[in-house]
């Protein structure tokens, strides 16, 4: 340990420049939109922009909350994203356990089919999907949107959980069986609790997916009062084209929830993605 710390050489100038570059690339745009949201109507359209608001004001956010349906869109987004998250967790957890742990006959082929659905472009399915949702009475409903989102997140998440399942020794299953636990109890009480990091990864992926999703939400939800945030934000922009302050505030309030979520469980996600994707 001591040797290692002493060996830690000084960072080269090139490395520092590269690090600053990456930092600015990632944070620059986020910083800029946040600062803009706190600027007054005169300052925000100044020809020479100010890098920090001279008279920080919350009026943009105030107008957003009072004059627009932001809170409705927010609640809709939370419903759809949570629904997608829980749905994806349940479905992909079961599927990966069946495919990769119980190794059902023909499981390899099924896993292949599930992976193949990666290749099928969601965009190309909008037209027929609309018809399908219409037939089963789920058009213009949160449930329909959740169903479609889960269909597109579950394949990737099922595969992602494979890496986590493999890291749990199968001797544990045998030991549980000797202790008299049936297959269902083994799954629920022995293996699933150990999959917590994998579940966190799946949770973040599916929540963020649904939070960002635009195309399906714009086509399958017709009523304004059911719209999710990205659709609502698009409407707000259309309605308040020249009110840059309001648009900036709306943008900040759209990205903030997913950023906050990520601050809390982002490191599990990054670790999970590394493990899952490289196995």
């Amino acid at each position: 340990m001591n040797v290692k710390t002493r060996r830690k050489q000084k960072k080269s100038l090139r490395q520092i420049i590269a690090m600053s570059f990456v930092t600015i690339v990632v944070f620059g745009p986020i910083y800029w939109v946040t600062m803009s949201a706190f600027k007054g109507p005169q300052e925000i359209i100044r020809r020479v922009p100010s890098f920090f608001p001279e008279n920080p004001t919350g009026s943009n956010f105030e107008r957003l909350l009072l004059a627009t349906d932001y809170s409705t869109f927010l609640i809709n987004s939370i419903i759809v994203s949570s629904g997608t998250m829980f749905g994806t967790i349940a479905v992909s957890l079961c599927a990966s356990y069946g495919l990769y742990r119980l190794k059902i006959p023909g499981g390899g082929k099924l896993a292949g089919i599930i992976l193949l659905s990666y290749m099928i472009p969601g965009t190309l399915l909008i037209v027929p999907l609309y018809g399908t949702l219409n037939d089963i009475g789920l058009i213009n409903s949160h449930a329909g949107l959740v169903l479609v989102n889960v269909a597109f997140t579950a394949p990737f998440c099922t595969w992602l959980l494979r890496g986590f399942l493999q890291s749990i020794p199968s001797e544990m299953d045998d030991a549980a069986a000797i202790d008299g636990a049936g297959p269902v109890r083994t799954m629920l009480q022995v293996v699933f609790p150990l999959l917590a990091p994998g579940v966190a990864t799946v949770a973040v992926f599916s929540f963020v997916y649904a939070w960002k999703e635009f195309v399906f939400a714009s086509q399958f939800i017709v009523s304004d009062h059911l719209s999710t945030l990205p659709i609502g934000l698009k409407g707000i922009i259309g309605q308040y084209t020249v009110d840059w302050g309001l648009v900036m505030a709306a943008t900040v309030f759209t990205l903030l929830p997913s950023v906050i979520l990520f601050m809390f469980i982002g490191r599990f996600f990054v670790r999970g993605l590394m493990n899952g994707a490289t196995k």
Partner: protein
Amino acid sequence: MKKHLLGFSLVTPVMVIMLVAIGLPLINSVWISFQDQRVIGGESEFVGFETYVRILLDSSFWSALGRSGTWVVVNLIVQTLLAFSAALLLQSKGWWAKSARVWVMLPWVIPTISVTIIWQWMLNSNYGVIHWALGEVGIDLGSPFSDPGVALFSIILVNSWHWFPLATVVIYGALATVPEETLEAARIDGANNRQTFFAVTLPLINPILFALGLVGSLWSFNVLDSIYLITEGGPVEATTTVPVYIYNTAFGAFRSSEAAAASVLTVLVLVTVAMLMVRFARPKEDS
């Protein structure tokens, strides 16, 4: 036997959901493509391959396919360069790399609609900060999203900012799988950093890079929102890739059958290209 019963019932939900939301629509898509349906669900009759012929003779479809090719390749290059540099930096020691391993994901976490607004704001030709900064050093940026010559590349940059974090984390994970001893051995044999990277690291992580490139290309081919939210495919079709073409055909021109036929053709192209890549470009996995 009981075990298999449990296994099958566990796999059933994902199968049902995928059947309803992907399988049936896909079959439906093929069905609609042989009809002459206009509005979704409207009246229609069987016309055979007529619609396909019309799509294949439509020069807009071919230009869209070409643009999609450019879109995929340039996105791949830009994102790989960005992601690789970032991933190598994440490997270094110290607080920067440690925190960056999490915050580098932020551009991916932000909803696409927000991403497009942020960049349109920063590049705005009247009030945009980047426009102003470049102007100060004598570069006139013009309007990057409404100039047909550069619009596609401008959106590629925005899209790359949005998606490079995912590739960064996967590449960083791949780099972490290379055993320290192997690198140490190469160094003892007198290889410098660059030689070690190209002779040891790169061959070892090649299979992961290939998988990432393949899946990433398919995902990026399918991107619709980044493009649609900024230009809707304009100016004068300059940013109309295949997904935008299909979207506009279905919901702008209300020609469901043509959109479906174009979708089917596109899936065929994607599957063929993917299979060719797996067949001929996949790195050998023996070590």
